[in-house]
């Protein structure tokens, strides 16, 4: 069972601000979905996990200089930029 306080904490971890109504609604919905996920408690398979079906482990390439996107193209979608850089919110 997760509580409204848990939902608030998950929202903090996920960087999504939740309104009070959302916290209520998600608490109910997340609990019903997690109840369903509890189906997996029925089994405890002694097998290796499958992260990827392809079986590919490491794919290497030569460390060669290649053409990349133009700085102008890369910055074209940035809502805030300054002197050729993306401008993020203040960190400290």
């Amino acid at each position, binding site marked *: 069972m*997760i509580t409204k306080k*848990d*939902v608030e904490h*998950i*929202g*903090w*971890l*996920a*960087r*999504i*601000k*939740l*309104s009070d109504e*959302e916290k209520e609604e*998600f608490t109910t*919905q*997340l609990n*019903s*979905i*997690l109840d*369903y*996920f509890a*189906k*997996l*408690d*029925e*089994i405890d*398979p002694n*097998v*290796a*996990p*499958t*992260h*990827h*079906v*392809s079986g*590919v482990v490491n*794919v290497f*390439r030569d460390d060669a200089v290649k053409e990349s*996107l*133009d700085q102008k*193209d*890369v910055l*074209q*979608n*940035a*809502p*805030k930029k300054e002197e050729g850089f*993306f*401008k*993020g*919110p*203040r*960190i400290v």
Partner: protein
Amino acid sequence: MTSISEIKKRMKETSAEEVVQSLFDKIERSKLNAFITLTKEQALKEARKADKNGAKGALAAIPIAVKDNISTRGIRTTCASKILKGYVPPYDAHVIGRLKAEGAIIIGKTNMDEFAMGSSTETSFFGPTRNPHDLSRVPGGSSGGSAATVAGGEVPIALGSDTGGSVRCPASFCGVVGLKPTYGLVSRYGLISYANSLEQIGPLGCSVEDVALLLDVIAGHDPRDSTSHVVKKKRYIDELEDDVSDIKIGVPKEYFEGVDKGVEKAVWDGIKLLEDMGASYSEIGLSHTKYALASYYIIAMSEASSNLARFDGVRYGLRLKKDKDWHTTFSEIRADGFGEEVKRRILLGTYALSAGYYGRYYLKALKVRTLIKQDFENAFKKVDVLIAPTMPFTAFKIGEKIDDPLSLYMADVNTVPINLAGVPSISIPCGFANGLPIGMQIIGKHFDEGAILRMAYTFEKHVEATE
């Protein structure tokens, strides 16, 4: 519906420009809401160029619609989300490069569930797409716009993406053909990630032949996607033979549990028809199927919580007018930009990956995934393909399930195991119930798209002949 050969014939009689213009006339009058963005000016320009210089390539001057989570240089790409407001990709996805190289004309970007999270195309920021067979019903999802516009005869072919059924579900609900390729067959470069270990871009069309032709164009190795496989390039179109006499079909009984009577009958009729054509069938078990849905959703949501962390308003998308501290800024942008279903999945994924729950949810789901994959490997030691209903029912009403997320997740019960195992599957129309199309899926071995396409092709030829 309008096939590629019909388009070619009409272009020969008139011109590419006239045909493309006529499609836009139809789309602009359409009630389907299948498109988020139309690229009319550019499309007509390319059509005129084709008329003047002659069209070249496997898809020469053929109009195509593209799902709006596939990056298109210079054409806004939204994932049907408010958070990507104003985003115009500076580069093309691999598949878009392939379409352009083969002469296809992009008509527009199609509507979808926000970030491909849904089975009904109701979670789009741009409003729901409607099913051409009944406008009060959903087209399926998440590639609902792509399936609906093909079914409505607005465009011959379209691209979708399939993470847990998002090509096959709308193909089934709209009565078109849709294929999810083997994981690694089609490059995901430029596909905006939702659950990257599960998803593939896939073709939709009104015939098996058109789907095979489009798959030929988009399949193949691309070094920019490290999960893309180097497979010997073969032409799927050459595999379309009217012969299934060497094929052993497996019918997984678990996939018929809880399926509507009308759907069950239509799929069995389909299997019997293939038996009449010379294939043999036997019932088999895929014993871990009952754990697939929980495993799928845990993995998909976990991957989503990580993949969607990039939407923070720094490099693209929504931004607050005035920044606050970084945590508040990002949290408020994401609160405003993401819709309810996307938030729900990010929250659940974050929870499943968080300290103390990783082993119970995420790791367990990955182990179950191994069991599901082994189920398929064991089945394919005995049979060549598997046949099952794509969806347990036909298209439901808009609004019917959207307030109960779990009931909507349950609709994917037959499509998600295929993505967990990474095998290919094609959904093909096999009948109607109360005027609504029913889809049958043919599932194959890894990289054996040839067999399922041949099977679907034979079926399509004879089901038409008998109706």
